C-alpha cells in the first residue's frame, strides 16, 4: 500500500516534469493544426459559395491589407493559433480568452489578458502561457532573437509581429500590460506582450517578451512569408 502510494507520487513528478509535457505539447499542436485546417476549409467553402469577382484588366495595387480586428473572446474561447518559426515548424498553439490556469492556460495553451486589444489593433495585445509543464508553449521564450516573427493566425488571416526585446519583471508589474508597455502614454503603435514565469519552475519573477506589429495578411492571400522563416 505504501509502496503504491510512493509509486504514484513518483509518477506525479514524472508526469509534471516530462510525461505531461509530451502529452500537452502534442495535444496543443494537434489542436492548433485542426483549427487551422478548419479555417482553411471554411474559407475554401465560402469562396466556392460566392465566386471571386472576375479579374479586371488592371490588377489592384498591392496595398497593405487593413487588419481585421476580432471581437474580444469569451473566457476559454479559442480565437487564434500562435506560430513562431523559431520554435519549430510544427509549433502551433491555440490561443483563447482569459488567463486562468484551470480553464485556459493548462488545457488550451496561450491565454489572452481580458480587456487588452485583439491582434492587429492599436495598443498592446497581452498574452500569457506556461514556460514549463502543460506542453510549455513559451518554453523557449528566452531564445527569441530581435526580428523573429511571431505570427497569430485567426479565421481572418495572419498577424505578423516582430520580436523586439525581453525583460524580467516582478510578478506584480502589471504596467507591462499598458497600451504602451510600462508607460502611461496613449498608444499609437501596435504591440504584443507575452508573459511567462521566470526563472523556469519558479514564480519569483516574470519574463516578458515585447514585439511590434508588422503586417496583416488576409486569408485570401495565403500564408505570409514570415511563417516560412524557420531557423
Amino acid at each position, binding site marked *: 500500500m505504501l509502496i503504491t502510494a510512493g509509486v504514484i507520487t513518483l509518477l506525479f513528478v514524472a*508526469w509534471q516534469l516530462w510525461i505531461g509535457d509530451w502529452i500537452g505539447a502534442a495535444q496543443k499542436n494537434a489542436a492548433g493544426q485542426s483549427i487551422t485546417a478548419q479555417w482553411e476549409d471554411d474559407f475554401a467553402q465560402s469562396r466556392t459559395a460566392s465566386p471571386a469577382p472576375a479579374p479586371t484588366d488592371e490588377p489592384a495595387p498591392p496595398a497593405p491589407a487593413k487588419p481585421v480586428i476580432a471581437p474580444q473572446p469569451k473566457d476559454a474561447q479559442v480565437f487564434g493559433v500562435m506560430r513562431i518559426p523559431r520554435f519549430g515548424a510544427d509549433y502551433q498553439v491555440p490561443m483563447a480568452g482569459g488567463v486562468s490556469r484551470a480553464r485556459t492556460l*493548462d488545457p488550451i495553451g496561450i491565454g489572452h489578458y481580458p480587456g487588452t486589444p485583439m491582434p492587429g489593433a492599436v495598443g498592446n495585445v497581452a498574452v500569457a502561457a506556461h514556460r514549463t509543464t502543460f506542453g510549455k508553449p513559451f518554453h523557449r521564450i528566452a531564445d527569441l532573437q530581435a526580428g523573429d516573427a511571431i505570427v497569430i493566425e485567426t479565421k481572418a488571416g495572419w498577424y505578423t509581429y516582430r520580436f523586439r526585446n525581453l525583460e524580467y519583471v516582478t510578478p506584480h508589474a502589471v504596467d507591462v*500590460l499598458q497600451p504602451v508597455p510600462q508607460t502611461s502614454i496613449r498608444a499609437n503603435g501596435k504591440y504584443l506582450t507575452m508573459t511567462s514565469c521566470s526563472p523556469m519552475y519558479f514564480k519569483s519573477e516574470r519574463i516578458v517578451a515585447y514585439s511590434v506589429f508588422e503586417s496583416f495578411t488576409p486569408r485570401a492571400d495565403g500564408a505570409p512569408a514570415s511563417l516560412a522563416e524557420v531557423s
Partner: protein
Amino acid sequence: MYAALWRILPGPWWVRLLILLAAAAVVLYALFFYVFPWVSLLIDPQDVTVR
C-alpha cells in the same frame, strides 16, 4: 492487497494478468489526464501572469 486482488480475479493466470494490465492502463489514463492536472493546480508553484 495485491495477493487478495489476484485471488479474487477469475480465470487462469494469463486472464488475470490481462485484466490487471487493462486495469493498470485505465488507472494510468485517469491519473495522467484527470487527477494529476487537478493536483497540479493545487500545489504547483507556477504563475505566468502579472497581476
